[in-house]
């Protein structure tokens, strides 16, 4: 940004004079390690307007030194900072408000760490970063046009926020009203671009100098990566990016990033929780985003085995192996005397039910799912990050022992506390639960198998058949179910063997539909490096919000098997409108479709296989006969193994 007092006397719009670029010095990290070898930009006077200067420059400078903007551009330094932060990719849609950063990234930064990934929609860029993080635990950044681009990105940012996923959003903005180009760039400028996402980002800033930027980027990374994780936004002035480095007396440095340790539960509260769990006859653990890393799942197994208590995995992460005999569906809490929730997004909804039956003046009926004396324990870091506007904190639930702490970080001390609290008597009582638990597990599995075979040969293909045909083909690979959009009646969690953290990456977070397609591509990009086989169950409604991400997958050669759950509807909404029609005692108007007007994706049917093909995918469909699914999957898997994305357009049952 130009000096507000005009004292430094340079103006990027008039191009630069030699005076403005004198004394450019290399950026240095504060740490002594040469994290980034910085080369001082050559001292030179740029060739530029006005003609008199040009004449002088032509006489004094060799032609290869020609540069409109003298010295090292600010955006080069911005890339130096980013390169210290282990950010591998920048999935983005291009825009002039960050053209300088874009140029520095691909030229000065040699398009490595971060590598630019071409996206068709800002929502896709954010969605990719979301999926990538869950597959690797590593954060990405995305660049957006600070106004219109950020407007597109918002829903995906909200999903990341609700799903506790970190990413950095860099919005370009031409802040200086006196110098920014008129017309479009002014439409695309705002006082405070981040206002639109402030309610669902952890932090944001608008740096006004390069040194401010360096601090803010490292701070942004640090805040985003401290549990509870979350997205952060940096508004980058176009001028600050474009102008040459101009230091106000002191040398630029890059602060060293040192991770912040996550918050651990208070030791008294941990002891009290252990006491309750050990004394309980029927303790139940419910986990939602407990396992931030594979170690979280290991710790949870250790705790559950110590107590021989059932674990309900609510599925926003892979928290607990579903092959373990203590793994249970939600219903098990009905018999609980102690319920411990780990990083639950909705404790109230875990222990209460809501029936949408139109009673009580239309608001429905609430009831407890647990016995009245049930004690409750909560450990969640999200208690440290509550905002006012968006209601992701859900209904209020009174809890007996409430820790504002990261569950995974607290588990080791809780395990130790439980060990010390187990007396001989309790150890015997706990051991007695094992046989019953194993039998209950076997019964549930048998019931699920019985349910899966009903409609096994139906056309359109049943969701159970879809999932099991798919599983049969991938189970011997190092597979990763990168996303399951829409609703397939939970068959993967019920019937697949999910034992590794990367085999189930969870859901969108904020239920903003359109997450599945980009998150799958982002996670597949991560899995490509890790040698894993990525598979996605892709619903039709989800794909059509921003299908351009298919092209991104082909363009960047991201192997992904996308198997469609094409039920030809926004099916969730089919049922909602039907429900309301019934409550009002009116025949639902289908208008020639199979469900209520405005909820079906048919007449005409979308040929998703052709859509994918047009964007460089191998694709096949529509597959309606279950007997054809296995062979088609085999073909598609061979394609994906060769490094390409492949899509099967499968017509499915609604749920």
């Amino acid at each position: 940004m130009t000096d507000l007092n005009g004292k430094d006397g340079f103006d990027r719009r008039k191009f630069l004079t030699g005076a403005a670029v004198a004394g450019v010095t290399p950026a240095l990290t504060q740490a002594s390690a040469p994290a980034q070898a910085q080369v001082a930009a050559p001292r030179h006077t740029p060739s530029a307007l006005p003609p008199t200067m040009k004449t002088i420059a032509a006489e004094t400078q060799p032609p290869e030194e020609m540069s409109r903007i003298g010295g090292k551009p600010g955006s080069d330094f911005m890339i130096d900072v980013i390169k210290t932060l282990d950010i591998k990719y920048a999935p983005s849609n291009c825009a002039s408000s960050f053209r300088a950063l874009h140029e520095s990234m691909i030229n000065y930064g040699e398009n490595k760490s971060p590598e630019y990934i071409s996206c068709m929609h800002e929502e896709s860029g954010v969605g990719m970063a979301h999926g990538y993080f869950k597959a690797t635990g590593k954060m990405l950044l995305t660049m957006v046009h600070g106004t219109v681009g950020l407007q597109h990105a918002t829903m995906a940012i909200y999903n990341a926020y609700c799903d506790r996923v970190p990413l950095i959003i860099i919005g370009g903005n031409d802040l200086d009203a006196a110098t920014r180009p008129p017309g479009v760039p002014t439409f695309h400028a705002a006082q405070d671009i981040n206002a639109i996402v402030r309610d669902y980002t952890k932090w944001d800033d608008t740096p006004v100098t390069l040194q401010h930027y360096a601090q803010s980027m490292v701070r942004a990374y640090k805040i985003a990566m401290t549990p509870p994780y979350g997205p952060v936004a940096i508004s980058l002035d176009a001028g600050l990016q474009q102008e040459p480095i101009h230091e106000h007396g002191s040398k630029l440095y890059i602060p060293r990033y040192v991770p912040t340790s996550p918050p651990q539960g208070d030791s008294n509260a941990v002891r009290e929780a252990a006491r309750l769990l050990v004394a309980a006859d029927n303790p139940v653990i419910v986990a939602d985003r407990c396992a931030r890393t594979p170690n979280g799942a290991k710790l949870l197994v250790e705790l559950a085995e110590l107590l021989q208590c059932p674990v309900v995995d609510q599925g926003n992460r892979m928290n607990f192996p579903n092959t373990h005999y203590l793994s249970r569906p939600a219903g098990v809490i009905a018999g609980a005397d102690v319920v411990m929730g780990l990083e639950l997004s909705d404790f109230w909804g875990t222990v209460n039910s809501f029936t949408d039956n139109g009673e009580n003046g239309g608001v429905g009926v609430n009831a407890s799912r647990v016995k009245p004396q049930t004690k409750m324990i909560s450990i969640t870091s999200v208690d440290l990050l509550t905002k006012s506007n968006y209601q992701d904190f859900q209904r209020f639930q009174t809890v007996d022992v409430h820790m504002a702490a990261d569950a995974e970080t607290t588990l080791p001390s809780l395990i130790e506390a439980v060990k010390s609290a187990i007396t001989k008597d309790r150890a015997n009582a706990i051991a007695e639960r094992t046989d019953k638990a194993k039998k209950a597990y076997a019964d549930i599995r048998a019931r699920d198998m019985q349910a899966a075979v009903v409609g096994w040969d139906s056309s359109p293909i049943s969701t159970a058949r879809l999932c099991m045909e798919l599983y049969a083909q991938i189970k011997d690979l190092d597979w990763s179910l990168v996303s399951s959009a829409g609703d397939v009646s939970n068959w993967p969690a019920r019937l697949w063997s999910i034992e590794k953290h990367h085999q189930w990456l969870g859901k969108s977070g904020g239920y903003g539909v359109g997450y599945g397609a980009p998150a799958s591509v982002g996670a597949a990009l991560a899995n490509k490096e890790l040698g894993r086989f990525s598979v996605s169950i892709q619903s039709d409604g989800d794909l059509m919000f921003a299908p351009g991400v298919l092209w991104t997958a082909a363009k960047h050669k991201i192997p992904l098997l996308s198997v469609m759950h094409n039920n030809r509807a926004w099916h969730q909404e089919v049922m909602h409108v039907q429900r309301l029609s019934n409550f009002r005692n009116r025949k639902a108007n289908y208008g020639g479709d199979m469900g209520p007007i405005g909820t079906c994706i048919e007449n005409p049917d979308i040929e998703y296989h052709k859509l994918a093909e047009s964007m460089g995918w191998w694709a096949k469909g529509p597959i309606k006969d279950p007997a054809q699914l296995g062979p088609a999957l085999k073909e598609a898997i061979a394609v994906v193994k060769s490094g390409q994305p492949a899509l099967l357009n499968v017509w499915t049952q609604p749920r």
Partner: protein
Amino acid sequence: MRNLKFITTIAATLLLSSTGAFAASAEKGRVAFGKNGCWQCHGWEGQGGNAGPRLARTQLPLEALTAFVRGTNGPMPPFSKKVLSDEDLADIYAFISAQPAPPDPKTIPLLAR
């Protein structure tokens, strides 16, 4: 199940007059199952899933099923006579009752862990 309790208490008290007055047809029932939206939550074959239980080869008598569909105040929205005729419901009943028996899961290799 909450709905079965409901059925036993309500079925006894509701007067079910017209059912059985016409020959129910499984074929027409398949169409009615689609046109009236039963497929949405129960699946096109009444196989059941996350949104509604299995109806295929229901063990409920028609009277109990009718009482439930007409009067439930649980998670399923009720269908009055105005929006779903007794005739259609009887056909739907014939359709779901006529569904083939599902295979034994043990005979399906895809279901072996």
